[in-house]
């Protein structure tokens, strides 16, 4: 009775040990394969706080909602006749038009850059480089505005430059 019990227990123990070994090996290989292929990026599926905390939303702002959208569309639509006009006339004859076109192009570019940063370098995923790039863009936009103003004031202006370089 007792000998058979010893035999049974030792047998089951060895089987158990082997199965534990096998499952741990499998688990290790599987984990390695998945973690290699799907490396963690910040902003991944981890919880901040607990499972019972509600999702956080950005604070509501009219300038980030439909107004922003409508402004983008109006600016893009306004650029269509402005581009046609730039082909028809020269900026040197109408410096005010040259100034408005330059400013519109810069704001249009800034919005385009900004939405690209929001899409590809969101601070949720890129907590350091995201804000750095966003502030770099803001500084570059201000610098570009000053540069275009200087060029339009002290030189021949953007439309005239493009026209002359094109036929140079």
């Amino acid at each position, binding site marked *: 009775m007792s000998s058979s*019990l010893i035999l049974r227990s030792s047998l089951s123990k060895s089987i*158990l040990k082997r199965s534990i070994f096998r499952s741990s090996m499998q688990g290790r290989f599987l984990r390695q394969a998945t973690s290699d292929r799907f490396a963690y990026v910040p902003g991944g599926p981890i919880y901040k706080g607990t499972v019972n905390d509600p999702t956080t939303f950005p604070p509501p702002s009219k300038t980030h909602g439909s107004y922003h959208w409508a402004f983008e569309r109006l600016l893009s639509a306004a650029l269509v006749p402005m581009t046609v006009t730039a082909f028809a006339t020269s900026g040197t004859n109408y410096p005010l038009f040259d100034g408005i076109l330059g400013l519109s192009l810069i704001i249009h570019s800034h919005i385009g850059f900004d939405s690209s940063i929001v899409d590809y370098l969101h601070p949720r995923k890129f907590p350091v480089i995201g804000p750095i790039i966003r502030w770099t863009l803001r500084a570059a936009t201000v610098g570009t505005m000053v540069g275009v103003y200087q060029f339009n004031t002290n030189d021949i202006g953007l439309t005239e430059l493009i026209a002359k370089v*094109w036929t140079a």
Partner: protein
Amino acid sequence: MLSTRALGLAPSLRQAAFSPARNHVLRNVIRSSITKRSIQTQSLKPEDGTTILNKQRLQRPSSPHFTIYEPQLTWVGSIFNRITGVGLSFLLYGFSLAYLVAPGTFDSTHVIEFVGGLPDAVKYAGKFILALPFTFHSFNGIRHLLWDSGKFLTVKGAYSSGYAVLGATAISTIVLMFQ
């Protein structure tokens, strides 16, 4: 009782009476000394649950996304609208900042002189590189504005307007190249 003691049967009877219990005790001793519980328990704090869950969530594979789609005119046109726009904006920002930093080097006279001195092949290549994104972004931008106003929002509309944009881009690029 008296008779059993008198007969001398007490030891054997006692053994019979106690032997199953003794056997049971022996079995328990053997079992506990040989076998071990394979399941171990561990006490956890309530907040440890979130830590374990987060560790598990990091093991989860992410779904395949745009790489599994075949290139189609709809989304390829959309991403090229962004790429061309960013490229042209880089040129605007680059030139304006360069003029801001070094107005003596990047003034119109020097730029026109530099471009005028380039060989014809480089001029045509440069015109092509500039005209293609400019015309594509302009025409596709109009297409996007038409979508935003609710037009061409069918599959047929998306494709016919897409081919119209490609055609207009090709023609206007060639026209601008030989200006």
